[in-house]
């Protein structure tokens, strides 16, 4: 199982979740996973991840939370 860090952005005001996620990506080690919890579809974040060599999967949970798992490609 890869190590995992969590950013709960559900109670944060934009762009704080994006700020915190970008900060965390700077120190994300190979094999490590970053989980971001949001109430929305963060298309700007997806675009940044695609352009910078990260893989991610996103799924909506029953309570409306979007759980995004990010790791290095």
């Amino acid at each position, binding site marked *: 199982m890869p190590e995992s860090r969590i950013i709960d952005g559900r*109670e944060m*005001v934009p*762009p704080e979740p994006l*700020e915190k996620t*970008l*900060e965390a990506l700077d120190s994300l080690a190979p094999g490590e996973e970053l989980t971001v919890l949001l109430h929305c579809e963060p298309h*700007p974040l997806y675009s940044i991840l695609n352009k910078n060599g990260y893989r991610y999967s996103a799924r909506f949970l029953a309570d409306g939370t979007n759980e995004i798992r990010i790791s290095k490609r």
Partner: protein
Amino acid sequence: MQPILSFEQAPPISVPYRFFLTAPLFGVIAGLLLAWYGAEAMSSRWSPAALALTHLLAVDVMLQVMCGALLQFVAVVAGANIWRPHLVASVVHPMITAGAVFLAAAFVLGLPILFLLAGAVFALGIGFFLTVMMLALWRTPARGMTVHVLRLAVFGLLVTLLLGITLAGILGLQTSALPLLLLINVHVAWGLGGWALMLVIGVSYLVVPMFQLTPAYPEWLTRALPFGLLLVLCLWSLQLFSPADEAQAWQVQVAEAGMLLAGLYAIVTLILQYQRRRRQTDVTLILWRVAMLSLLAFSASWLLFEASPQFGSHARAPLWLGVLVFPGAFLSVIIGMLYKIVPFLNWLHLQRLGEPATMPNMKQMMPEGAVRWQMRLHISALALLLMAVLWPAWALPAGLAFAASCLLLEWNLLGAVWLYCRVRDRAVKDRAVKDQIRAVGQDHET
């Protein structure tokens, strides 16, 4: 469904900033003008000073910020391609500024030629802006109520402009061929309801849940509000074809329905804000609340004035409504949104320049203390302006307080722009040094 934000489409930062930095300066001029004219400006809505002040606020402050914000918002929220935004801003910004100065001067000096000049400049400047905006909103593939409501708001501005140009023509040519009062009734309704309120409604569907962490607006309301408002405005406009010189009884009832819609929107927004998930209260939230309470007070006062002619027929009753709606409702929303938009744009554009970790975060873009002081000053100025309607001698302190509030707003915005320029220049310099080191390294290898 969540809206898609497309930051790739964002225009250059100088496009919205030129509008944002100009607007408060005209707020200062409006405040000083009120202080200079004093009680005379508060005698009636038809006093030259009151008419000049209204148009300085509506055009050089409100329209200025709304145009700048719309150029940014439409590109980011609707993913719409704005045709050459830099060129559009370079043409529209000076024309709006000059047009409003001509118009205010025309009222104060009573010079008919200035009305014609203002009408011509607005026709070109705002007409150009509307053409670009309509093309962008027409072609965008984005769907959703916010985009539909933005289209309606742009249509509202078009009707306001056409009626405004007609009025400027009547005053400039000194003709009585058209019913002046009816045209003013309809011009004011479209400017306030069809353009300004429609725009605030459309923007709020997105920004209130996003920035204030509230539940979404009920779906039925997101449809009922804009289309109900449009219906009210169309029916209200029928008075232009009436043989009488004033609105008919049924049209007054239509206007009452419009006021109920505005009041309903304010109440729902306040309830949503009460239900927000994060209990923290920031300046933007407070200013939105002030705005919604002012809008509610505006609607309630209008209905009270209709029900009680002893209040409604008073010469200063329209001034009471004007203070509640211009500085109270719209300017409060505008200031609150500027405090979100400007730090966000700084952050967004700086992110693209360098290492995100070395860039200031959102909270560092504007000093919280100065922002809170400006908010307090704005609310105090609003209270003094309302007092000045009741006791016109208060116009002097009210005008000075309003000017001071706008001056501090300008100072806060300039501080954020200065910070942006400083960090941008540093990032560009760092990048140049890194490129130079890399080039020297490659030379050594070869």
